[in-house]
């Protein structure tokens, strides 16, 4: 049976089509979820895609967090549903308190789009088990508010528990504390990542195919989880 991976569209989501494409290329069935949905249509995992939900006018992700579909996702994630938040999705996960800390304005104050090297530091999550620990990957980063901040205790806890999933290598594109690019919750099913793996799944349109690993990981994870 093919896994069904939901991709949520909020008003202002932009990379939802790309996330769905990446799910498809990885061999799963993408299921489009609407922000107003009151149910998850039986999906096995969820991707919160990049974009500017509700214009991101107040704080990125602050308004999306209150969408009806988010209530379901928050509940289901507590039961182990794998959830990947990419860029705006990461911001939404932090605003929804599924992940600690916050994403703030890039330190240089500009939107920045570049191909970025990351080091995968935790392969124990639902979304990174296809990588090798310490593997360096190249995927695009593009954000205006991607600077990860948290208090020292939280940062130490993340490090101590191996919950820093990926770090920027060869230059930090936004000033994130401790070069953090991706983190996970204690259970490892919820991952937030600032760069865009869904834009590195085709040789023709991406800088590499390294992004695919996130989407194949969740399939591997789902096979291992009894339904």
């Amino acid at each position, binding site marked *: 049976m093919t896994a069904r991976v939901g991709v949520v569209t909020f*008003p*202002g989501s*932009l*990379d939802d*089509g*790309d996330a769905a*494409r990446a799910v498809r290329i990885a061999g799963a069935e993408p299921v489009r979820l609407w922000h107003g949905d009151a149910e998850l249509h039986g999906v096995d995992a969820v991707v919160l895609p*990049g*974009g*500017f939900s*509700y*214009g*991101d*006018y107040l704080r990125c992700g602050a308004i999306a967090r209150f969408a009806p579909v988010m209530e379901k996702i928050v509940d289901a994630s507590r039961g182990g549903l794998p959830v990947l938040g990419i860029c705006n999705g990461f911001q939404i996960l932090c605003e929804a308190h599924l992940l600690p800390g916050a994403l703030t304005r890039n330190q240089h104050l*500009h*939107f*920045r*789009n*570049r191909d970025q090297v990351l080091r995968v530091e935790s392969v124990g999550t639902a979304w990174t088990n296809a990588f090798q620990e310490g593997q360096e990957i190249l995927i*695009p980063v*593009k954000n*205006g508010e991607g600077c990860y901040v948290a208090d020292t205790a939280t940062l130490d806890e993340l490090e101590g528990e191996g919950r820093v999933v990926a770090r920027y290598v060869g230059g930090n594109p936004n000033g994130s504390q401790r070069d953090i690019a991706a983190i996970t919750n204690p259970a490892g099913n919820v991952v937030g990542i600032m760069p*865009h793996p*869904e*834009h590195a799944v*085709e040789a*023709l*349109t*991406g800088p590499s195919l390294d992004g695919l690993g996130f989407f194949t990981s969740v399939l591997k994870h789902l096979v291992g989880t009894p339904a």
Partner: protein
Amino acid sequence: MTTHPDPAVRETPGTFPAVPTEPRAAAVAPQGSPVDAGRPAAPAPAAEWVAGVDTVPRAAGTPEELQPYAELGLRDDEYDRIRHILGRRPTQAELAMYSIMWSEHCSYKSSKVHLRQFGEKAPPSDRLLAGIGENAGVVRVSDELAVTFKVESHNHPSFVEPYQGAATGVGGIVRDILAMGARPVAVMDPLRFGAADHPDTARVLPGVVAGVGGYGNCLGLPNIGGEVVFDPCYQGNPLVNALCLGVLPVDRLQKKDATGPGNIVVLMGARTGRDGIGGVSVLASATFDEGSEQRRPSVQVGDPFMEKLLIEACLELYDAELVVGIQDLGGAGLTCALTETAASAGTGMRVWLERVPLREPSMEPHEILASESQERMLLVVSPDKLEAVLKTAEKWGVWATAIGEVTAPSPDGQPGRLVVTWHDQLVVDVPPGSLVDDGPVYARPMREPADLILLQADRAETLPRPTDPEALRETVLRMIASPNLADKTWVTEQYDRYVLGNTVLAQPEDSGVIRIDERTGLGVALSVDGNGRYARLDPYNGTKLALAEAYRNVAVTGAKPIAVTNCLNFGSPEDPGVMWQFAEAVRGLADGCLELGIPVTGGNVSFYNQTGAAPIHPTPVVGVLGVLDDVADRVPMGFVPRAGGDHDQLFLLGD
């Protein structure tokens, strides 16, 4: 949800009832707009507006009333013509409308006689589905798919308020593309600034770049190329041109014609505010206090989120075949959209202006008609589809309001009239074609600039050449350090080039390449180029060169060039030297296209780019679009590492 124009208020085609029926509350906020729900475009108390409003009967009864037409940019003979057309003096609202529609920007009154060449010299093409005169040219690229693209200027607003000026420039061109039935899929931004080390460039450039990025990124449109050029001639007048590319199924092409009497006219998108009506504010200067200037900003603020919702809502309407006609609201706001849609169908229109959802309840008729508020579209909808249209708007959280209906041409075969009321007061009654097609046309005097001979006499061959390695090194270093040749990453990094996942080539490539059909690999290549210094020395050949450069940039990716767009940035057309440059440039572009065998499908003219009496260099910016049957065959500009140690061979073509 919005109520329909009530059948009770539908009058006999072509006639206007002496006493219009009671208007209905027409605007109710879509779900999720509680702010507005409590306050639907509340009409001001009667006494307040009745006193100030200039009606048609009043205009007819006060022929001698002085009107500030000159301040609105209309000449004596133009004003006389308006009076002749109407058989009376225009009302305030009508005067505002004529001044907008007969402005250089809308009427192309100085450029029209020259631009004709693009049509006359165009090689026959069976690809062209919509050409010059439409919102944007549409070319067929396969049996099922067509693309549309156009470049437009937003120069002056970007100097006043760089961020918002540039942002709304992107927003405007995207709506042009959307109006053709296309999904916008990419943008480009040819930019010109003053000297790189001038303090004002430090204000303008970062603002413009952030604005282009802020709007385009938030809309989810990849930026696939552009230009950044510095020259002191642009110090007081930077150029911000924006190009948008859209894709549509051939059979989804939309028209702007307001056909079908009885069809409903719907305004969709943002509410209307006092944006960009600085010029028209002179109409109120007599009736307003000191503070009136402050109340009328000429700057528009963009809301890309609203535009994103508008795009999705429009595409859903097209796919469900719910609209008869559609037109974007651009620089000339409702005035342009109402008159153009009616004029192109030969129909009339009846509009209840108080139904327009307002941001500021105190707005007057002429302000509503002139407002340049962004993120709005005008739809023509058959009555049985209205419900579905409003539902779609509601789903996407945008306002949609029935503000009027299409009326029949008059029985004698003459086109219909545009009739606008404001709380039962008749404020506009005009033949729409008189605003759109019967504007003034000028064959302006032209003269080769007196200094051109001197400039041309100073030939490049006479420049000292580096004669030894040291001098050569100097020259190379100086060139590398030139802002015009330097790396543009600081700019391009602020733009999302990945979104939508179809960007095959973007910076630093010669052309942007976008895949438009994932199944077949069909794609298009686009390049925009211009060289103001060259055009200053020789506008005819300088323009041809810009075309040739864009053509080559497209061709080297492996694409076949098929269509041309352009944005002609010049000084004042009232300066014979500038007018000569313009005429030469147009002739050059038309001739060049004839020689290359590809048509100009659309474009934009921007005049009055000057500081005091000093015009910018004539700056025609040319965009060329090419087709790639399979984007996998594109040729990037860098060398590609080959397996097995094979080496690339280098050849130099041409002389």
